[in-house]
């Protein structure tokens, strides 16, 4: 008898959304531990490369550019605030802004005044770190269909599921209807002044969004969402308490992991406790709502490698930062050109593995221009 062989070609399939999220959160954790611009830029490049290689052609997969722009905006805001509000001073004064005289009561706050290179650089590093975190999360959003992730959310949370599904569906439509209303406004001559924009555009758009939300919620209900077997109130309350406690624990744990200055006890232990609580909640509440899955999301070798790649990157950074953080936090006093620490840089390279190890996205989904769709319209 012939043994079952691994197929020689890799079949295209979407990766489990959880794997993408673990990978992205791993990259984000790594980024949160450093302000070294070289490392941060490396993280962004790696993430962008994986996104370019493995994203689909679905509507949610086209938003990566938006996250990049958003990142730049974050850096810009950060720097602008630092320039205006001062903060860290240093020897290298770039220029001096006229200083606003403030009453002595607000001691310690300064508006305008000398702007030092150290301060600006500090703001740039900090903003870059924030932007990188944002881009990592954005990459997860682009790579994993948010609605498929939602399916993986336990049945016990189904009331929240309605809200999230509606938000996920209506939010993109909001942009669409804003464009439509803005265009329609021109038909009325567009005599409105700037302040009237809120009223003339925002109001119809929000009303539209509200209508759509209600329609969608009604449609979900009519199709059996939250179809319950009768449950007693006590069990309901227990589920809710467990789930909320668990999620709170997970949030604290993630915060502890991401913020190096938080007490150690807040990190991994809280994460474990939270996960345990949430899991109990799922088990207790799972009996409440019975659902099945049309296509089970398999968790196979590629999922493991992608998730582990992210975890490995995060692990190296967390370990390095607790041993010797000097390479991760470049010095500003004295002002120095940041060096590229070897080990973390190599670790970031692990994050690039999913670009090859994740299965390719389906070809049929990739090339399907809108023109072909309308041409074959009935």
């Amino acid at each position: 008898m012939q043994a079952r062989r691994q197929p020689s070609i890799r079949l295209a399939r979407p990766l489990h959304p959880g794997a993408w999220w673990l990978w992205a959160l791993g990259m984000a954790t790594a980024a949160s531990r450093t302000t070294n611009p070289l490392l941060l830029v490396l993280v962004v490049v790696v993430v962008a490369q994986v996104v370019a290689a493995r994203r689909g052609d679905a509507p949610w997969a086209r938003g990566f550019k938006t996250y990049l722009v958003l990142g730049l905006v974050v850096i810009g805001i950060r720097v602008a605030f630092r320039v205006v509000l001062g903060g860290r001073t240093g020897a290298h004064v770039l220029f001096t802004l006229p200083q606003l005289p403030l009453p002595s009561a607000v001691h310690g706050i300064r508006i305008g005044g000398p702007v030092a290179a150290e301060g600006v650089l500090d703001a740039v590093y900090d903003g870059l770190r924030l932007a990188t975190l944002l881009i990592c999360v954005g990459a997860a959003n682009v790579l994993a269909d948010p609605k498929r992730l939602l399916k993986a959310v336990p049945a016990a949370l189904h009331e929240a599921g309605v809200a999230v599904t509606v938000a996920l569906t209506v939010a993109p439509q909001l942009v669409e209807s804003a464009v439509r209303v803005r265009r329609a406004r021109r038909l009325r001559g567009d005599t409105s002044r700037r302040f009237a924009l809120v009223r003339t555009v925002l109001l119809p758009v929000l009303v539209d969004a509200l209508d759509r939300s209600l329609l969608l919620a009604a449609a979900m209900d009519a199709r059996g969402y939250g179809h319950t077997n009768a449950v007693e109130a006590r069990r309901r309350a227990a589920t809710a308490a467990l789930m909320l406690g668990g999620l709170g624990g997970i949030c604290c744990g993630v915060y502890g992991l991401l913020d190096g200055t938080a007490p150690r006890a807040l990190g991994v232990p809280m994460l474990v406790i939270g996960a345990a609580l949430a899991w109990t909640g799922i088990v207790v509440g799972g009996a409440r709502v019975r659902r099945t899955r049309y296509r089970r999301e398999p968790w196979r070798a590629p999922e493991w490698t992608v998730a582990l790649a992210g975890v490995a990157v995060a692990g190296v950074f967390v370990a390095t930062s607790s041993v010797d953080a000097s390479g991760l936090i470049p010095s500003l006093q004295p002002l120095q050109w940041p060096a590229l620490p070897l080990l973390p840089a190599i670790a970031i390279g692990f994050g690039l593995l999913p670009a090859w190890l994740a299965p390719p996205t389906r070809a049929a989904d990739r090339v399907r221009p809108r023109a072909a769709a309308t041409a074959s319209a009935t």
Partner: protein
Amino acid sequence: MIRFDHVTFAYADAAEPTLRDVNLTVDAGELCLVIGPTGAGKSTLLGLVNGLVPHFTGGHVSGAISVDGRDTRDHKPRDMADLVGVVGQDPLAGFVTDTVEEELAYAMEQLAIEPSVMRKRVEETLDLLGIADLRNRPMRTLSGGQQQRVAIGSVLTAHPRVLVLDEPTSALDPTAAEDVLAAITRLVHDLGVTVVVAEHRMERVVQYADRVIELPGDGTARIGAPASVLATSTIAPPIVHLGRLAGWDPLPLSVRDARRVADPLRQRLSVHAQRHGMSPPMHSSVTGAAVALAADGVVVTYGDTVAVREVGVELRAGRVVALMGRNGSGKSSLLWALQGSGPRAAGRVRVGDRDPHELPAAQARALVGLVPQTPADLLYLETVAAECAQADHESDAVTGTCRKLLDRLVPDVAAEQHPRDLSEGQRLALVLAIQLTASPQVVLLDEPTRGLDYLAKDRLREILRELANEGHAIVVATHDVEFVAAAADEVIVMAQGEVVAAGATAEVVSSSPAFAPQVSKVLSPAMYLTVADVAAALEDE
């Protein structure tokens, strides 16, 4: 299958109940058509079947409604999902997932059906509705007809015994509507599904209906055989009006039945035609009028997609032109380009000696007025009076101009009403009045007939005729062939962004099987388009 037992329903803030003491029974396997003017409670009646009304909308119900013995008082809509499938007016608004296949599986997942059964049912449903080739497509890339069929499929996979459809074909072009209706009749005949469907454009559905529920608008409901209900109902498709005019009994409801009894009428008309010359009836005597808008080589592109490909049109004062074509054939893009607000990649548009695209918005709308597909986009104030005042202000018109125009179009709109509370017809009239306040010579309307009942469409036809007689040039983009037959002087048919046919209504419309109105199909080869034409000819004798 469905029982309404002394059902009275009133919305929370309404003075009058929407439905009053309704008693009716729909049997298993029936296709039941719900008819009535706008606001008569058609959607309410449909919502009551699975309990979306009042569980989702609020309101007070007395009496009992049961489906297959399940009472909607004790069962929420989600607990009726395995029994009743509901498809709303806008299928896109009800889609929960992103691709066709997932959408079909969604209801089954909620009902905890075994994965192996799910796979089988999804395949069956894909084939049943002829949408197998769409399985991996994202929802937003589907055409209107495809979306509607996917929506039907998505509730069908749960194997409901009852299917409730609210205006399934109102947004569709004639051919797509045929596809959807074919799918629905197939369900009734092959699977024995009970179907309750509301539809304004009865001419499409009435021939397939086993029974008709009429809601005259006073809260009562009447159920009966289609021919007997339609014989006396105030709103009826053209074929019924023709039947009444010719005194046919029983009333034919399909073109086929009508043709079989129409021989004597055809003979009478041909005698009349010989006596008075063969010329088809013309709606307008204005010929050779001044050109109000001339466009040449208009191109509209979105990225790589060409929406409008080198189209030239000439609009004359006093003429009503209908713009027809499939969903996505470039009608809206052309209208927006002509108005000047939409993008235009190439070509020339001239109104007089000016190009509206190069003028500021306020001046462009004084040349060309456009009523968009969703007229409500133009409204943002709290009362009709405020909207009218704002319109006067925007157009630098004399105070009260807009209100006067509105009163001419529809006299009974209260000044303090919120625009969102108006009926579809009233809202359309309000937006049209706002656009007319700027006194443009060219008026463009994008799908104005959507959601209008026969009476409102008649009124719209009269309004357009009056405006044309005052010297406006009018373009109406629409799928409604009956409306075109009655209202338009000329027809332009577009496909894939190009003009494929243009000319007098009678010539363009009667030569095409998809675009021919019912009267023309019944009486061909005689060139009559509307019941009014036939009546005029018979009176002449």
